[in-house]
């Protein structure tokens, strides 16, 4: 097969001296699906930014159809036939799908006015041609995530993309939607499209790709035909050492109810019921996993439980204490810790130091604040040092700002604070999102050891594999409701979960009520 895109000895050194790409050689063949894998910070994103014209290479060259190209901006790359579907969708929520599709290249009437009818027609035609089903006249806020993604793919095709870059496209999809996407991508490939698929989920790479390129520390480690390698080889190449892909997990010994959640409801600003009378009991010594496609109420549920949103109905009780709509500080005082889903905005204060972040929930305790409200620096330093060591936070000193840490280490700061808080209930949301494999292994083991200490853990994650391997029991959320409860997480397959996640199946009321343990 002929080569369509080639990077030759490509280097990218940022202003601060970080070499994000070191002599990268990448070959993409026409009409193939190439997997690009690597840990966070391995240089995948930088490489793709160079290919998409968002960054200029420091040295080396890029060949398109055998001819050297230099993109000044992504506009040049788009004009050359390269399209990118970002991990975070680039859509305007209040506009319709058709309006989003043609944004930047709008059809006009003879009078020069915007031609909405033709925009809808273009959307219908493209949708039919590539068999990517969308509703052109619906507004983006009203359609599912998977339809938004199809729209993003259509957007690149509308702009004439021959090479399609997909950045972690499955992180927001159910297993069924993922299968559907893969079938659509394979159909696109068979029509002659070239696709670069960025992922860290090896299973998907093996399912979809023709070849796979592995990156580590800014360099390409190897490229393989998918038939010639196995998962273990790729994992080892990604991390640079032997990785244990399985967790040793002892059976749980659930105790008394630690957190009693009854009838919580939440309606968002668009008037959509995001949480619909959710009830469950969280027991000591168990990890209760919450499964669902992103946007089905998990985030809102966590926000209610941790005092970041108000529930319309129902109650949250911890023992004798009523924590319904209590402020975060009271909830924390009552012994509920919170690993927030977004460490950048809620979980950590980026410009503040590691020490300040680690002690954010306890600086006012007498041990750290002496008489007169003055901080005891030495006690704070000692406590911070302890947590830094215990949680293996890689830094030069606890006084370094959190913003200067890598994603994995930043998350360890959040985990370190929450897991050392005086709490027996842990609400953990997306604990390993955007974290490298080494740190994931560590965080997973820590969660299990907290459980073995008898803490009650509510685990919300959009990584299905993660929830399945860590949880003892599971609830599935769809459209804000609990649609299923599984007392044994290990006895469920992801295909079966997918049916519940999509709302195609629902357990009966009686079965679901068992999660109350009453």
């Amino acid at each position, binding site marked *: 097969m002929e080569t369509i895109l080639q990077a030759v000895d490509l280097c990218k050194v940022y202003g601060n001296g970080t070499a994000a790409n070191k002599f990268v050689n990448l070959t993409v063949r026409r009409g193939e699906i190439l997997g690009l894998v690597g840990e966070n910070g391995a240089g995948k994103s930088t490489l793709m930014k160079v290919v998409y014209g968002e960054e200029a290479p420091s040295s080396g060259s890029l060949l398109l159809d055998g001819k050297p190209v230099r993109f000044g901006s*992504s*506009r040049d790359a*788009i004009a050359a036939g390269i399209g*990118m579907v*970002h991990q*975070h*969708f*680039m*859509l*305007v*929520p*209040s*506009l319709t799908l058709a*309006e*989003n599709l043609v*944004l*930047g*290249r*709008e059809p*006009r009437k003879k009078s*020069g*006015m*915007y031609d909405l009818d033709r925009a809808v027609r273009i959307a219908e035609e493209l949708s039919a041609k590539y068999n990517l089903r969308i509703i052109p006249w619906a507004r983006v806020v009203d359609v599912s995530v998977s339809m938004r993604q199809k729209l993003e793919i259509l*957007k690149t095709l509308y*702009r004439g993309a021959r090479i399609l870059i997909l950045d972690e496209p499955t992180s927001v999809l159910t297993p069924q939607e993922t299968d559907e996407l893969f079938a659509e991508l394979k159909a696109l490939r068979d029509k002659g499209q070239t696709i670069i698929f960025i992922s860290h989920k090896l299973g998907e790479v093996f399912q979809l790709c023709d070849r796979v390129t592995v990156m580590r520390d800014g360099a390409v480690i190897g490229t393989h035909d998918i038939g010639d390698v196995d998962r273990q080889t790729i994992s080892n190449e990604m991390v640079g050492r032997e990785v244990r892909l399985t967790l040793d997990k002892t059976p749980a010994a659930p105790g008394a109810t630690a957190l009693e959640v009854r009838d919580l*409801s939440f*309606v968002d*600003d668009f*008037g*959509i*019921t995001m949480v*619909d009378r959710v009830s469950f009991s969280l027991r000591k010594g168990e990890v209760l996993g919450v499964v669902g496609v992103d946007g089905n109420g998990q985030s809102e549920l966590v926000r209610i439980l941790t005092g970041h949103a108000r529930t*319309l109905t129902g109650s949250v009780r911890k023992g004798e204490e009523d924590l319904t709509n209590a402020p975060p500080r009271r909830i924390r005082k009552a012994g509920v810790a919170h690993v927030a889903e977004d460490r950048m905005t809620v979980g950590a204060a980026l410009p503040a130091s590691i020490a300040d972040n680690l002690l954010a929930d306890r600086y006012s305790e007498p041990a750290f604040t002496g008489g007169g409200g003055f901080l005891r620096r030495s006690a704070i330093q000692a406590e911070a040092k302890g947590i830094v060591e215990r949680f293996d936070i890689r830094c030069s000193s606890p006084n370094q700002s959190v913003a200067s840490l890598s994603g994995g280490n930043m998350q360890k700061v959040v985990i370190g604070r929450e897991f050392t808080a005086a709490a027996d209930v842990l609400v953990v949301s997306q604990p390993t999102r955007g974290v490298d494999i080494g740190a994931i292994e560590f965080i997973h083991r820590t969660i299990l050891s907290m459980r073995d200490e008898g803490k009650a853990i509510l685990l919300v994650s959009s990584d299905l594999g993660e929830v399945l391997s860590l949880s003892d029991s599971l609830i599935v959320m769809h459209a804000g409701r609990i649609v299923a409860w599984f007392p044994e997480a290990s006895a469920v397959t992801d295909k079966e979960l997918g049916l519940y996640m999509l709302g195609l199946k629902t357990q009966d009321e009686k079965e679901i009520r068992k999660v109350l343990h009453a």
Partner: protein
Amino acid sequence: MMDFLASVFGSSNYWFIVVRSTAPILLVTLGAVVTEQAGIKNMALEGSMLWAALTGVLASAWTGSPWIGLAAGIAAGVAIALILGLFALKLDANAVLVGIALNLLSTGGTVFVLFSITGDKGISSSLPSKVLPMVSVPLLRDIPWLGKVLSGQNLVVYLSAAAVVVIHVILNKMTIGRRIRATGENVEAARAAGIDPDRIKFFTLVISGILAGLAGCFLSMGYTSNFTSGISAGRGYVANAAQVVAGGTAVGSIFAALIFGVTDALATFLQSRGLPPELIQALPYAVTILGFVVVTLIRDKREAARKLKLFAGKDDR
């Protein structure tokens, strides 16, 4: 007092003044709406109005033509908006702070220029400046009562009505309107679609500069026939509040501007009733703030009620 108010609200004279008072605030509110839709706050509308009012007077006095005065005034209004754009978009300064700085500069700067030229710090009456013409509208003027209210207004009043239509078309019927909305709502999405957000924002700033320039010229060449220090009297700030009441639409701007216009005109009438003039002068602003609060409260309440209703609606499953 009730009798007095009844007689005021019934008189065509009062409503004539309402329309006249509404026009300048309507123009700046439209300007605020357009920039806000693109995601940039034009706090310097006040400064644009001040320089436009002064420049219009000076240029018309020197050339003897109100039209050259109008053109020069609008150019001055646009210039201030562009300076805001330069600092906020190209040099990454905070748009609100730059806007306030420009307004302070304009308050002092216009008086300085006025004094340098006329030797008077308060008013430009020594200059032979021109005013923009009144327009008597055929057919409209023959309608009883309504004709007295709507006909015979200054040219700029009719231009402000036209501006509502133009802004409505720009925002809703033209390609650029979609791009403005995309830029304001998700700047990354706009950029990814090949739109240059800075260009869109500059475009809206120019529009708001034209509108504020028109409003400024009206104040010194129609509403009154002189430039006086601080002639814009905070209308540029009011516009940024009115923009919220307008809900981001051109048509909503009429309603928002009317709140100000109705009370501003009322203040004129109340002055004859022996109330302290300072209190009366504060009235339009107080009512605007009140309107702002009321509209926000109503919106919040409706939002909460809507949520509860939507939730309760799911009960019969």
